[in-house]
């Protein structure tokens, strides 16, 4: 039943986490939780890159993971600043209420 862990296990785990994050982005109305789901998606990508780095015994994949981490942190900081400005101006964090550009 329990056999050795192969790279395909990590890739399946990463795919499932990606699906969870995507469903979270599409499903929720609260912008804070949407930003958390984006973090989940980026973590799925990181698992994938680290697994391929291990599979090919190349360290380069982990460099990519570090870059993705830095970009994810920048994205979270800017996204949350936008959220605070949005809440100050509109008084809501529900994505459906922000429909000024929708017709």
């Amino acid at each position: 039943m329990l056999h050795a862990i192969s790279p395909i296990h990590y890739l399946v785990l990463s795919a499932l986490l990606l699906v969870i994050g995507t469903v979270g982005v599409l499903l929720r109305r609260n912008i804070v939780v949407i930003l958390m789901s984006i973090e989940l998606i980026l973590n799925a990508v990181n698992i994938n890159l680290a697994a391929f780095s291990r599979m090919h015994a190349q360290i380069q994949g982990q460099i990519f993971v570090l870059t993705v981490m830095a970009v994810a942190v920048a994205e979270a900081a800017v996204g949350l600043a936008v959220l605070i400005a949005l809440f100050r101006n509109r008084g809501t964090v529900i994505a459906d209420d922000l429909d000024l550009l929708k017709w």
Partner: protein
Amino acid sequence: MIDVLLFYFFSVLVLGGGILTITRRNAVMSAVCLVVSLLGVAGIFLLLGAEFLFVAQLILYVGGVVLLFLFVIMLVNLEAAARVRQFRRSWPVVMLAGLGLAAELLFLLCRGNLPETAPAATLPPNTEALADVLFSHYLVAFELTSIVLLVAIIGAVWMGQTRKAQ
């Protein structure tokens, strides 16, 4: 044997934490579940032999990003948002799209020609090798990343400040 058990343990942490993150009504509970999921990812990094990424994941995500989320949750009044409907009205379509995406990804992973076992060749000691490559071949990417971070800092401060109405 022990690494197989650890892999499944961390997988349960990652997936369970992720599912709880996107289903909790209270955003603080979502953030706590996000911590569980990110800790699971850190454990997966450790199993993959990426010690430096493990530490970076702990410091950056669990120590930085989630803390930022909790601060924003405190600054923004979420009680009104917790009382309204949490999911979109079109949730069956979203579920179908998620199932379709999962089926597609798993189908492609099954079709793919991936090796069954990890290679016997192991990576050299992690942090040292990472620094060797990062500061020689990928120096330009490293510097560009620092510029991205600088722009993000300035943008976050500029958008987060209060300005008097003109």
